[in-house]
């Protein structure tokens, strides 16, 4: 089996970005070369899925070379059933982002496309790194392109949002760095994640390590109460930025829990699980109510993302197969759905230059094709059966009820809340009489917009109707993870 696939998945987009930068002021060239790179990046990840051996528990497509021998840091890549899906999702979303920014971005096109491609490569690096420092390096480097994207192509309050985004996330990751160094020293000089999974640690340091990781990942997820950067970042970011932020970046935090917190500090995870569950439920319920009162569509979807991610963390910390698999399905589904929702808002914003719900009304009369997609994605966001949104939520709720009826009960309120805030927004935006003259002048989506919305609609429906290809891949790895978490490391 050729084993440089992961390296290619990381470095093709990053090096390709420099080709795009070279296009400079030539916008057409920049767009087409970015699309070519994005396609190449996606194509290279397909063999990862096709060649993935679902029966195998350990890491696959492993690459291991010394990187910084002085500190025993390795260039160590590999994927298991948990991470492989995210690499695919990420590379796939990158194509959509390039298409979504096609005509919308007029200024510094090459830099825009290049920044997204670099970010795509870095994300693949995060999902495939099995060396803690390599992970950290990708994790933190991915802040740079996002900072630039929000700051350069963002809305009126973009500078504030970009700084908040960067500093918030940096805060978390710096504490994690100290935890990584501590683990390096207590493991006798290794940054190998797989070795860390076997490491015995006392309870007190385990709790501290867990908390250090928690700060890093909770900010990224984001969990209540460190979520406040996300609505700002989403509102100000350009459409593509919001899509990547919601579809991929939020998953990094959740992924971190699975790769670091749970297997390295399982006893602390069990010990602190009530706290994690409480925080998750607050995110699900409280943030759901917050979403209900939003006047800005992007803000509403941002809060709904936080609420959905609360589901994901809830699924992790109830420690059963249904919970974790449901959370993973939810993460992927959320990648499609929230990406699609932000693209829908982007489509309307490009025409109206407003994201206020009050400025719309009766969009369906002017944009029937668009409204069809919009309603479909909204249904998926609300967790309607037969869409991808339903599968994950249902699995997590089932898992939660197994764990404790009342936790499951509270979590299930999301089905009502999610439906309430999403459908109420759809009602106010798409239905009713035509709201004003600007809405009356709207034109329906063009071929480019139809293309990316249709692709996402297919994904959402396919995953909702037949989730087996997704759960099958993760099964063995989740099983293995649970075994790990069940063993005490004291």
């Amino acid at each position, binding site marked *: 089996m050729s084993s440089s696939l992961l390296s290619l998945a990381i470095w093709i987009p990053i090096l390709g970005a420099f080709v795009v930068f070279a296009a*400079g002021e030539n916008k057409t060239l920049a767009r087409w070369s970015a699309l070519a790179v994005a396609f190449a990046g996606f194509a290279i990840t397909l063999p990862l899925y096709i060649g993935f051996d679902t029966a195998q528990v350990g890491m696959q497509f492993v690459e291991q070379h010394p*990187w*910084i*021998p*002085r*500190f025993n840091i390795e260039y160590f890549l590999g994927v298991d059933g948990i991470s492989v899906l995210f690499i695919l999702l990420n590379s796939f979303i990158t194509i959509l982002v390039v298409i979504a920014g096609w005509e919308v971005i007029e200024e*510094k096109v090459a*830099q825009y496309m290049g920044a997204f491609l670099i970010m795509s490569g870095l994300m693949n690096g995060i999902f495939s790194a099995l060396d803690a*420092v390599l992970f*950290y*390096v*990708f994790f*933190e*480097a991915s*802040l*740079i392109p996002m*900072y*630039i994207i929000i*700051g*350069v192509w963002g809305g009126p309050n*973009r*500078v504030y949002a*970009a*700084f908040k985004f*960067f*500093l918030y996330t*940096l*805060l978390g990751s*710096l*504490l994690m*760095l*100290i935890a990584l*160094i*501590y683990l*390096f*020293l207590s493991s006798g000089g290794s940054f190998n994640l797989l070795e860390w999974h076997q490491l015995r640690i006392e309870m007190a340091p385990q709790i501290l390590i867990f908390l250090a990781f928690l700060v890093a990942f909770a900010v990224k997820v984001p969990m209540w109460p460190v979520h406040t950067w996300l609505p700002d970042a989403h509102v100000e970011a350009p459409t593509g930025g919001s899509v990547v932020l919601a579809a991929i970046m939020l998953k990094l935090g959740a992924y971190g829990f699975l790769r670091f917190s749970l297997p390295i500090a399982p006893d602390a995870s069990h010990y602190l699980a009530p706290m994690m569950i409480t925080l998750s439920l607050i995110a699900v319920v409280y943030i759901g109510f917050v979403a209900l009162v939003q006047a800005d569509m992007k803000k509403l979807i941002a809060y709904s993302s936080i609420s959905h991610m609360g589901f994901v963390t809830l699924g992790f910390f109830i420690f059963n197969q249904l919970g974790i698999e449901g959370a993973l399905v939810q993460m992927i589904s959320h990648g499609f759905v929230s990406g699609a929702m932000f693209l829908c808002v982007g489509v309307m914003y490009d025409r109206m230059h407003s994201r206020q719900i009050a400025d719309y009304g009766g969009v369906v009369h002017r944009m029937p094709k668009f409204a069809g997609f919009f309603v479909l994605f909204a249904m998926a966001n609300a967790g309607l059966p037969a869409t991808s949104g339903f599968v994950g939520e249902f699995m997590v709720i089932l898992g939660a009820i197994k764990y404790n009826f009342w936790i499951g009960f509270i979590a299930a309120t999301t089905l009502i809340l999610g439906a309430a805030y999403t459908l109420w927004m759809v009602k106010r935006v798409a239905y009713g009489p035509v709201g004003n003259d600007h809405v009356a002048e709207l034109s329906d989506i063009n071929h480019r917009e139809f293309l990316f919305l249709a692709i996402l609609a297919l994904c959402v429906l396919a995953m909702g109707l037949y989730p087996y290809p997704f759960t099958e891949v993760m099964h063995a790895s989740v099983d293995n993870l649970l075994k790990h978490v069940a063993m005490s490391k004291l």
Partner: protein
Amino acid sequence: MLKNFIVPDLYPAMPEIFLAAMACVILLVDAFVGRTQRWITPALTLITLAGCALITYQTMDGQVVLTFGSMFVDDLLADFLKLLLYLAVIVAIIYSRDYLVARGLDKGEYYVLVLFATLGMMVMISAAHFVTIYLGLELLSLSMYALVALDRNSPRATEAAMKYFVLGALASGLLLYGMSMVYGATGTLEIGGVAQAIHLGVANKTVLVFGLVFIVSGIAFKFGAVPFHMWVPDVYQGAPTPITLFLSSAPKLAAFAMALRLLVYGMFDIAEHWQSMLMIMAVLSIALGNLAAIAQTNIKRMLAYSAISHMGFMLLGLMSGTVGADKHFALNAYSSAMYYVVAYVIMSLGAFGVILLLSRAGYEAENLEDFKGLNKRSPWFAAVMMMIMFSMAGVPFFVGFFAKFSVLLAAVDAGHIAVAVFAVMFSLVGAFYYLRVVKLMYFDAPVDAAPVVAALDVRFLLSLNGAAVAVLGLFPDLLISLCTYALLRSL
């Protein structure tokens, strides 16, 4: 008496001798070159430095050789630091040329003073005796005072030079006082002898530690660590930018060597005393440097405060050695500090290089505002500056991240977890003002739409400088291992 005189082995000091001779030649030649042959002096200066590099490289054999009656040492550490020193000085001179020419400051004095300052630094790096250290330090400092005042029509530069001189003289006095105390306690001025006396326990501990306090003060002044940092912002801001560039880069290498020779070579056995002093200075420098930098509008002043915080980080590495055992156990700590200094010098050269690039005749790009919209004016150099800023903030994949990483590793290894957490929290504060520079370059519209013009060699070198920040971040092992190896062979 005369018949006892033995000609010392001059071979280990060949680079210094060559540089001293050439500096005198250049001084002489410069007096005779006409207006049309102004290029001769800089060319000769660069050739001299290249020649020094060649000699140093040729004589590099990894042996520890003492000469001049054990006053002067040539080891791998010295050779390595000197090679970096030449490189930093060469880069500084090339970056500075256009600026100096545009302001009529490209006098022979500049080149000669830079060479003498370089000579002083080389002597400091190779010192094995208190007197040698003092000699090198004074040669460096006196050349520096004159360089800061190079633009004699500028009141700000003169004021800065005055401040620098008064405080510098005070610091030299403190250092000298400390040395005399140590001499009183140990009966020798030789660094090796001092170490021996302390190791055997014959030195009077009270006097020794009393002297140590003054020595540490003198070192801290050279680094510009809190509370001996007062001169740094004023001098950085007041001096002409090329002088700030020079001041902020190469002397840090020499100061590091001085700290290493005095503290580690000389007084390792009382390390617990100087380590606690360094820890206080490190913590204060990181806190004050990062906090004060936020409030600055002048980029030179901002980088001055950033330099203070960087030196704090470096001290964090230097104080993290294992005490009470073989020096080699502390190797990680010292090599991390050394790596930090080298990384800082590379970043600092690049940052001031970009400032110089933006300054034209009659126009000083020294306010943060001048960086507005640089991405529109010159995407390439905006990218270089962005990489340097992110590197200084300690964001990967840049060299600054691995510098911070190795220092933190050493600190946590020595059990200073709380200090490490403190340091990273303040580097979060620091990230803010580096991000602000990036914000100005990328998010804001340019105030001044003039294209960025520069000579080809400057563009090339600056690009190389930016590339070094990135490449040394992608492949950090080379530099880390070189630092470690040089130290390993010299301790």
